């Protein structure tokens, strides 16, 4: 080769090499641009458009509600809403296990879905047809709601590509209607609507978390190390003061008694005297929170916290207590009373039974529940003082426990009392009270004059184990010990000598109890005739009170008076004393107070 050709060949090589280098440099620049300069944009773009990332919701578990012994009354489970994508509906080619092929028609598929979901096959076909008719491009229609996990599993096994499942946490109440009216319920969307579910939502509430991750495009497998987790926060546990076995017995018993007495409704309240804790709060008709719609809307809340009534004779012992505490009477003070009297101010008061003029002791007036005698005793204190005392016993003082929707009761100030009210307030009329207020008044007497605020909620335990005990408030001395003891003895004598003494007897125990009858308004400003709201409240063992029990029956028609509640009190007392292992003691009062002078 000559030198010229040699030189030109070298030049060509140089030029080619330079071109290659330039192109290479271009690639390098572009690579750096893609991989370094705009890396974040491209990653974001891939996550937006490509099927490269996934996320999964981490459900927080709403806290449980348990009774005093830890028995679960409310817990969480998963429910599934079922939807369908009408655009994908059609016949499916399937292969049997033996290898033969067949066509599964839409009708057959609908049948299979219907067997599991409970919606009829015709209904499913109609939903799909209607949706397509309304919008031929529709991709979604609801088929069923609140399917169980078992149904969800069975549906998934059908391998139908157009079924869409939407899981959601839901509540389940293992004990059904036991304490159902107290526990409350949630809406379908998981919002607490009533009862403890609502009142303690801040403790029970859970927060959902999320995990996001990158995944392989082809197989959808998570790429290790790419997970980013926002953990779910579970809710706390609410412990109630209830005993679920006791609660069940009371619900069963009051249901039978309400039916026996042909009453409209009934309640039982059991309270521990020393601690003020509500051990049972039963009612009939009751509500099963597992199936709220099955119950009458009137009885979905708590009758115990939601009823106001004129307490009637159950408040006569409260009048006696204020007279003793003010020192104007003793259990053996006397007054004369006829079966019916007109007082100088024009008010007329009658007893519930005909009798000649008796010289009643204060104890006797309570035993016979004489309105006339109580009116005369009550007059020993001026209206203002009696008003103050009723307020101290919680009348018109607002909610006792703080249950959602708890009523307050109501009393008119003493300055507005008319002639009839002047007397009626001595025997529990002309003002209204709630069941917890009456129970609280008796708890005060049974506990030696010290009121311990009633409580239904024991504590809230956070998921990390921190226990917050609910503070029901400080105990407060309302009556002196001597007064409380005198009233306790009088009540024991009422239970022993009163008209329902035989019916409320529990062998081996002495029971203190007082009945009450409230007239009901007919809605036109008058009282209903011959139909009453009846109640009885008592404590046992009378010489060393452990439990206060109150029974109410609304409009009993077999026995219309407060005696209707006696069998229920007897059963309730007997069961409470047995269930709580209270040992038998004296079966009658150590001092039998005389009724008459």
């Amino acid at each position, binding site marked *: 080769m000559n030198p010229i050709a040699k030189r030109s060949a070298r030049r060509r090589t140089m030029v080619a090499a330079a071109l290659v280098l330039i192109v290479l440099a271009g690639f390098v620049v572009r690579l750096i641009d893609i991989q370094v300069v705009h890396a974040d944009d491209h990653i974001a773009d891939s996550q937006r458009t490509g099927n490269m990332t996934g996320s999964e919701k981490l459900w927080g578990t709403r806290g449980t509600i348990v009774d005093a012994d830890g028995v679960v009354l409310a817990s969480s*489970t*998963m429910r599934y809403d079922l939807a369908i994508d009408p655009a994908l509906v059609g016949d499916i080619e*399937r292969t*049997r296990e033996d290898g033969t092929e*067949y066509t*599964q028609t839409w*009708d*057959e598929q609908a*049948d*299979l*879905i219907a*067997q*599991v979901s409970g919606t009829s096959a015709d209904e499913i076909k109609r939903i799909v047809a209607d949706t397509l008719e309304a919008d031929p491009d529709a991709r979604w229609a609801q088929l069923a709601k609140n399917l*169980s*996990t*078992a*149904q*969800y*599993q*069975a549906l998934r*096994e*059908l391998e139908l590509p157009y079924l869409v499942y939407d899981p959601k946490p839901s509540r*389940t*109440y*293992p*004990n*059904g*209607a*036991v304490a159902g009216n107290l526990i409350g319920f949630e809406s379908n969307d998981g919002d607490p609507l009533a009862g403890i579910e609502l009142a303690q939502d801040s403790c029970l509430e859970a927060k959902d978390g999320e995990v996001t991750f990158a995944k392989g495009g082809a197989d959808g*497998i*998570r*790429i*290790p190390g790419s997970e980013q987790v926002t953990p779910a926060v579970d809710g706390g546990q609410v412990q109630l003061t209830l005993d*679920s*076995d006791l*609660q*069940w*017995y009371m*619900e*069963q*018993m009051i*249901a*039978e008694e309400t*039916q026996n007495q042909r009453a409209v409704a009934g309640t039982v309240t059991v309270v521990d005297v020393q601690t003020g804790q509500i051990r049972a709060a039963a009612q*009939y008709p*009751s509500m*099963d929170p*597992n*199936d709220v719609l*099955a119950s009458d809307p009137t009885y979905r809340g708590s009758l115990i916290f939601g009823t106001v009534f004129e307490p009637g004779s159950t408040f006569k012992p409260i009048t006696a207590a204020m007279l003793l505490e003010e020192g104007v009477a003793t259990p053996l003070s006397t007054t004369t009373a006829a079966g019916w009297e007109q007082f100088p101010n024009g008010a007329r008061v009658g007893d519930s039974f005909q009798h000649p003029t008796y010289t009643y002791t204060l104890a006797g007036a309570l035993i016979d529940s004489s309105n006339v005698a109580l009116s005369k005793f009550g007059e020993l204190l001026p209206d203002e003082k009696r008003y103050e005392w009723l307020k101290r016993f919680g009348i018109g003082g607002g909610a006792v426990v703080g249950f959602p929707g708890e009523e307050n009761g109501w009393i008119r100030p003493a300055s507005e009392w008319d002639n009839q009210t002047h007397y009626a307030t001595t025997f529990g009329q002309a003002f209204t009270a709630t069941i917890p207020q009456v129970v609280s008044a008796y708890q005060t007497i049974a506990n030696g004059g010290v009121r311990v605020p009633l409580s239904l909620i024991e504590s809230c335990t956070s998921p990390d184990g921190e226990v917050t005990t609910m503070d029901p408030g400080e105990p407060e001395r309302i009556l002196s010990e001597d007064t409380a003891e005198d009233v306790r003895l009088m009540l024991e004598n009422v239970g022993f000598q009163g008209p329902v003494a035989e019916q409320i007897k*529990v*062998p*081996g*125990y002495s029971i203190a109890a007082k009945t009450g009858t409230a007239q009901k308004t007919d809605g036109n400003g008058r009282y209903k005739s011959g139909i009453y709201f009846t109640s009885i409240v008592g404590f046992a063992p009378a010489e060393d009170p452990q439990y206060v029990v109150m029974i109410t029956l609304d409009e009993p028609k077999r026995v219309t008076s407060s005696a209707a509640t006696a069998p229920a009190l007897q*059963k309730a007392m*007997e*069961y409470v004393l*047995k269930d709580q292992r209270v*040992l*038998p003691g004296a079966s009658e009062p150590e001092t039998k107070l005389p009724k008459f002078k």
Partner: protein
Amino acid sequence: MSAANTAAVLRAAAPQPRPAPERTPGRRLHAVPAPAPRRRPKLGYAVVAFGGAVAIAVAQMGLSVLTTQSTYELAALNQERRTATLQAQELRDEVAGLSSPQHLASKAASLGMVIDASPSYLRLSDGAIVGEGEAAGTVSTVDAGERAAVGNALLERKPVATPVAGGSAEAGKKAAAADQGAQKAETEKAAAEKAAAELPPPLTEGLPSPTTR
């Protein structure tokens, strides 16, 4: 005169060591007689370096393969866990309500058990009987069986029918047949349970004895 000054004087007087006089014999630079033989690079280093690189590459590939492998295992296990969770949920739903007092009471009532009135207590300290002291009656204070009034919708839940996927429109018929089969199985099960109930309890582990604390 201070001691320090004395010391300085003494040091000054001491004989100083002198460097030995350097001798310079002839030329200072001269040609190397023979270049040092060039050492051959040791093969060992090359082998180690190359082998190391290969080992690293192989290890990385191996680890990568293992990671990928375990990712699939992880995915499979996750799937298994999800299935197990669902199953556990299903089973929990199935037994929910069975421990409720109304269910236990109605079962007890159907066995002829009653809720008796007041019990008697045996006082251990003196052996006295406290309470009514009468034999238990046969009448229950509440009727948890026939007049059961405390509802629980969980107990009324029907088991989920397993749909039968048939090749033709016989699916419905087959389901009905399966239902009948299930009912038959149930009757048989009930019969077996009844037979078991009539047998005395097995005594394989000795007589049952109450636990005392």
